[in-house]
């Protein structure tokens, strides 16, 4: 046993796969400790907040400020609202409004802005200008005004008893706060999803659920496949005929179609993650059964099996001690692949809206389903689905690597 393990861990493929899988597992254990709480809690109002660090604007007003005189702060402020394209569009506006622009350099921000302020009038309707364009200029004008406003901003509060506005704070252009001093700062490494949930927290939790689904599905499928394969292969005859009859039927019916039909017939409030896992297991045992059976047939007439039979050993004992150990390595490899395909099957089902009920636990498939329903792929919210795809890819990649590694160790024809 020790030797086998040593051999296994010497396989570089297995090792890489194992490391990736372990780090995913570690992440699942450690991250909830760092960031505890319900992964389905809707922390953000609105959909798809971008990844980044969010600083409470309310709290930062009261926070101790330091004065920093940074070169180019004003330029940056203007650049934030005035891109190169905006500058060209401003020129277009001047042209459309037949204003003389000879000698105007659009990189000269001050002159450009002065000219803009002198000439822009939101109420003018230029010939041939679309509503979208007109709205664009109004927004641009508002942004410029906001960025180029007075040096000091005043924050005031409405006194509840008198209804008067009371000045609370003044903010200078050179005031800075240290993020560490602000009471409420939230980092969302992967932003929020369509419900305003913390995507990373949800992803970590979903990863756990999906692996659990994979494990259950893999166990069920391997168990059924192994049982039928062993019985059919060893007993042969009538039992084998029956086993093969069912196996063949299940081989010709596409298992995914079967999976869809079964999931569809279970009403959604009954569809927990475990139910889905068992359903997946029940539809994916076929290939395990077939290959176990063929291996058992080749083992059935080996000398040690015959000897055992002559010695009067029971059926159970022969299968468990004389046959199972010879196919154990194969079964383990098949099990690993079943886990991987179980996770993929859940993702596919959920993507079709046939996955586990949605209010219970997050799963990788459900996360993708909601991202797709909210057209995250169309509106550029990559953080809602891409990390999920990557996670699924990593999980099945690591499991497949481990499988290939094991294959190299156990399969004599592949051994170096």
């Amino acid at each position, binding site marked *: 046993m020790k030797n086998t393990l040593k051999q296994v861990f010497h396989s570089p493929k297995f090792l890489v796969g194992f490391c990736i899988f372990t780090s995913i597992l570690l992440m699942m254990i450690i991250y909830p400790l760092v960031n505890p709480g319900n992964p*389905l809690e*809707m922390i953000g*109002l*609105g*959909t*798809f907040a971008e990844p980044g660090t969010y600083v409470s604007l309310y709290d930062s007003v009261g926070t101790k400020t330091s004065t920093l005189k940074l070169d180019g702060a004003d330029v940056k402020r203007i650049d934030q609202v005035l891109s190169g*394209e905006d500058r060209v569009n401003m020129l277009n506006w001047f042209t459309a409004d037949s204003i003389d622009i000879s000698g105007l350099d659009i990189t000269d921000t001050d002159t450009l802005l002065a000219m803009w302020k002198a000439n822009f009038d939101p109420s003018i309707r230029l010939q*041939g200008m*679309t*509503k*979208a*364009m007109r*709205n*664009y200029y109004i*927004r641009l004008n508002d942004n410029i005004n906001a960025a180029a406003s007075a040096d000091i901003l005043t924050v005031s509060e409405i006194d509840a008893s008198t209804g008067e506005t009371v000045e609370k704070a003044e903010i200078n252009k050179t005031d800075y706060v240290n993020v560490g001093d602000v009471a409420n700062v939230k980092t969302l490494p992967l932003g929020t999803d*369509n*419900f*305003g949930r913390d995507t990373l927290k949800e992803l970590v939790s979903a990863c756990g659920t999906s692996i659990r689904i994979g494990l259950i599905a893999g166990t069920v499928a391997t168990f059924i496949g192994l049982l039928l394969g062993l019985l059919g292969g060893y007993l042969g005859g009538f039992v084998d005929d029956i086993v093969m009859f069912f196996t063949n039927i299940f081989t010709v019916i596409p298992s995914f179609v079967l999976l869809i039909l079964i999931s569809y017939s279970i*009403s*959604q*409030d009954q569809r927990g993650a475990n139910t889905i896992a068992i359903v997946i297991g029940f539809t994916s045992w076929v290939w395990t059964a077939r290959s176990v059976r063929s291996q058992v047939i080749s083992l059935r007439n080996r000398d040690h099996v015959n000897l055992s039979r002559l010695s009067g050993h029971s059926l159970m004992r022969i299968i468990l001690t004389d046959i199972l150990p010879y196919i154990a390595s194969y079964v383990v490899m098949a099990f690993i692949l079943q886990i991987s395909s179980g996770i993929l099957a859940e993702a596919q089902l959920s993507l079709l*809206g046939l996955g586990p*009920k*949605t*209010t*219970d636990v997050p799963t990788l498939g459900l996360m993708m389903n909601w991202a797709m*329903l*909210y*057209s995250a792929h*169309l*509106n*550029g919210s990559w953080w809602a689905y891409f990390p999920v795809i990557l996670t699924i890819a990593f999980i099945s990649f690591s499991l497949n690597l481990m499988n290939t590694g094991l294959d190299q160790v156990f399969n004599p024809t592949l051994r170096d």
Partner: protein
Amino acid sequence: MKHTRKILSLLLALMLACSLTIVSAGAETVELPRNETLYFAGQQWGSINGWNPLSDDMNNAMGITQDAGGARTIMYETLYMYNMLDGSLTPLIADGDFVWNDAHTEITVKIKPAAKWSDGTPITAQDVAYTFETNVKLGNAKGNGYKPYVESVTAVDDSTVLIKAMLTDAGVAVNPLQLVCFLEECYVVQKAWIQTLEARCSNDTTAMKNDAAEDVVWSGPYTKYFANDQKVVLIRDDNYWGQDASMWGSLPVPKYIAHVIYADNAAGQSALKAGEVDVCQEFIANVQDLWLKDGLPISTYLNEAPYGICVNMPTAWFNLDIPVLQNASVRKAIAMAVDYDAINQNAMTGQSPTFADVPRSCMNPTAGEQATFDHDAVKDLQWVGNDIEGAKALLEAAGIVDSDGDGWREFNGEKITLNSCCPNGWTDWMAAMEIVAAAGKSIGIEITTEFPEWSVYQTIVTATTQTDYDIFMMWTDSATPAQPWGRIRMMMSSEFIGVEGNWSGNWGHYSNARIDEIIKAIPTTTDATELKNLYTEAVQIYLTDVPSFSLMYRPNKFHAVNESVWTNFPDSTDGRNIPPTDCTDGYGIAALYALELVNP
């Protein structure tokens, strides 16, 4: 032998390839000049069955849509055009305003002398009368819908129509509001053509309804041009009577109206973004990103949130056939715990006024409907949502507590387990149901979501009784001349209990004798103060008993336009008073006459 096999297999492969090319080349297409075509999305799903305006199942949204919120008058026309912005009716086939008699039981409508059918014959009062009679005879949606309110439509002379209301025993109109709806909802179909159809179908009603009407006579500015499973195209009728000075004075600008049949909303939105669609009737999440982030020439009727005119309220209904939901405290507690701001931000992405802006009632957010009831009188009954403590206190007071300590409350000794349902794929509703389920969790009532397919969902919801869905979503009426009365009836009238195939309302089977009286009284009440009292009382009952609770305010028609090709679409600031109804519905069709090319 070997050679023969090789040649045979090659031949087979060739045959397969050939047949594939033939099949794919078989789909015919029409090329439409882009700058003469106005493209739509979000109206037509699946291929059309025909152009028969007397049928309910032509699945032809562009050609045939008779909706009280504004009928689509591009091919067939109504007497009047409804404008949801101010509730006004603009004459189309009719000449001038309609006239009530003094008893408020009859409407007289004149027909425009210029109004003509596509075959050049004038539109007469006989056409209007015969259309109504045929609708009733065929038992189609318009016939059945108006039979209880309209006693008869008769032609006084060629250009005068008299519409008589169905009267109650007391001699007043059952519902004069519905008579006004009739004027702007129902198409006028040519009598001569109906008679041709009757002769063709030997007067068999089923055959008449199934006829595809390829030979139909129309009166609108467009007519059928091309339709297959990928596209529906209508072409302008350059002989359209409406270019007469007494109507529009010109032809509509686009020569073609085309609707590509998209697989789903996402496909339609991609096309809108690409500039392949000009007018999009689809809910677009975060629509403002299209111009703010992507810088696309796309805009909506209002420049700021909620971007459209919200006129109805998608509503969650409590199933009162479920014992625990017969308890008003449970209903109100669930409704109080729901985070409506989250629904507004997530499901509608802010494209809806909040319940803080427009407190809940049976009325939509338009000023006209809001003025019908006394806001102060129902102030104490309002709830803002996300009030977990308030909801818990209400449940405790009603004796619905968690007695076995498992974190879930019990009712009659059993753990309360409910589901919240809506059709699969209706994203905004699904999100809303998720948020309702989350609210249940926070007050100790287990609610799980369930999203069946629409085909299953609709049969269950409209059944006489059902115990499958506990909390489920349905719509409420949009703005029509009969609102908010129609919506109150839809939300609470017990007349819909026990109706098989109930599409009319009260899907939760709520029953209250007083509200039935109010629903009966409102249409015939003319005194303004009394009317306001009745409306206020109805809202009071609604907020006390909570038979259902609205989750958001929503436009009847979404209206996002891409100005890559066409411009001068209706805009809230242009002073033209054209409603954002996709340039096709009700008075919204006026937009078609004012469109301009961006690059002429």
